[in-house]
């Protein structure tokens, strides 16, 4: 066990030292069990009605997707096209909390990736030293401090979702593919103005997604004149009674169709799993 892990164990133990006296779990359990019995009885009573409502909801959702607005169709089509060819990706991720009007716990990562979804190749490297690769049907994740297996920095596992880089950052929705899935649910997509970058011009689209309070997702997608997504910014804002959490991921795509070369890590540095 290294010093950092020892410190973590001490900190977590210290974080429970203020347990209130007389926490009577058994007394509370008896009451919780009575509430559970009552709730289960009520649930049985409304179950048949719930099935009818669910069937009606499926019909409504199907109708909504069938009449998707043109801007949404343009954005999802561009992202789908971008994510089905090889590309390079620069990603800047930042997050912070607002507590009592002050920004707290800011965090920032930068990652660069290259991917070839058709050949199931990918490699990613982040500013805090974390890396991943995907090649030959396996995903490899770099473990900076392989305490249990010294020298074997690359943990190998079968690729769960072919063509997708392993989500290696600590945020909630990390991959472009996951973002695309969220954007497909966008309630509102509008043209936000012109957009341009090195060697391309196009249009910026803005979207908002409201899965329900207290979460709100918003962002922009830049689409070039060839119908490819060039940049994607996604901001998640979560508001609670005492603080606001804001996380932004800014993705810039480039080098479409460029050859991607990824090699597996040396065998003597690899730890197969399972």
């Amino acid at each position, binding site marked *: 066990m290294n*010093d*950092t892990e020892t*410190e*973590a*164990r*001490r*900190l*977590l*133990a*210290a*974080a*429970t*030292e*203020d*347990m*209130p006296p007389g*926490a009577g*779990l*058994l007394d*509370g*359990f*008896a009451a*919780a*069990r009575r509430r*559970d019995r009552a709730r289960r009885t009520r649930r049985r009573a409304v179950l048949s009605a719930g099935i009818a409502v669910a069937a009606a909801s499926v019909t409504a959702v199907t109708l909504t997707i069938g009449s998707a607005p043109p801007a949404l169709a343009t954005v999802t089509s561009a992202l789908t096209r971008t994510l089905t060819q090889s590309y390079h990706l620069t990603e800047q991720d930042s997050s912070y*909390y607002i*507590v*009592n009007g002050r920004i*707290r*716990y800011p*965090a920032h990562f930068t990652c660069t990736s290259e991917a070839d979804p058709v050949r199931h190749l990918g490699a990613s490297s982040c500013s*805090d030293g*974390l890396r991943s690769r995907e090649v030959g049907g396996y*995903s490899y*994740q770099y*473990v900076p*401090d392989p305490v249990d297996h010294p020298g074997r920095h690359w*943990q190998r*596992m079968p690729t*769960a979702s072919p063509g997708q880089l*392993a*989500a*290696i*950052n*600590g*945020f*909630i929705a990390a991959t472009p593919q996951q973002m695309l899935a969220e954007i497909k649910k966008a309630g509102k997509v509008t043209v936000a103005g012109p957009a341009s970058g090195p060697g391309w011009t196009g249009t910026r689209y803005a979207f908002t997604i409201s*899965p*329900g*309070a*207290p*979460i709100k997702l918003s962002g922009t997608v830049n689409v070039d004149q060839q119908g490819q997504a060039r940049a994607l910014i996604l901001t998640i804002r*979560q*508001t*609670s*009674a*005492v*603080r606001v959490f804001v996380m932004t991921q800014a993705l810039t795509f480039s080098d479409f169709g460029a050859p991607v070369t990824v090699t597996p890590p040396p065998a003597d540095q690899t730890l197969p*799993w*399972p």
Partner: protein
Amino acid sequence: MADIDERFAAYVRDRGEHHLRAAVLLTGDWHAAEDLVQESLVKLYRAWPKLRADGDPDAYLRRIMVNTRRSWWRARWRREAPAGELPETVMADFADGQAFAAQVRQALQALPRQQRAVLVLRYYADLPEAEVADLLGCSPGTVKTHAHRGLRALRDNLGEDRHERHGN
């Protein structure tokens, strides 16, 4: 209490406090922790007759707690404002050790949900990486990544306070 299986009652008396402490690390405050443990105990009790005599109720309860906590989080995403987080001003009223406990929990709450769960299961419940991975439905590599980033973020969030309190 008479209608509760005596073996179950003995288990709660013996292990309840341990799980309550783990729960407060996951939820951030004692009220939510007690709710989480109570709800999980009810689910465990339903399965209790089916648990083999040599089964591991700790592992079963831990899985229930993780899943229950996850469903709470999803429900919160959909419809509820988060509650039970400690406002910073509350800490000023705590005695020194209590204030530090609350401060560590607040730093822990600032971490992404999955990172926090990894730290609690790995370094408080002391589970091996493979078991944490199994509980959270991810790979051991992801557990390592979350542990690495979570530990670093926890240290950053606590800053110098962690040295002052523990003399590291």
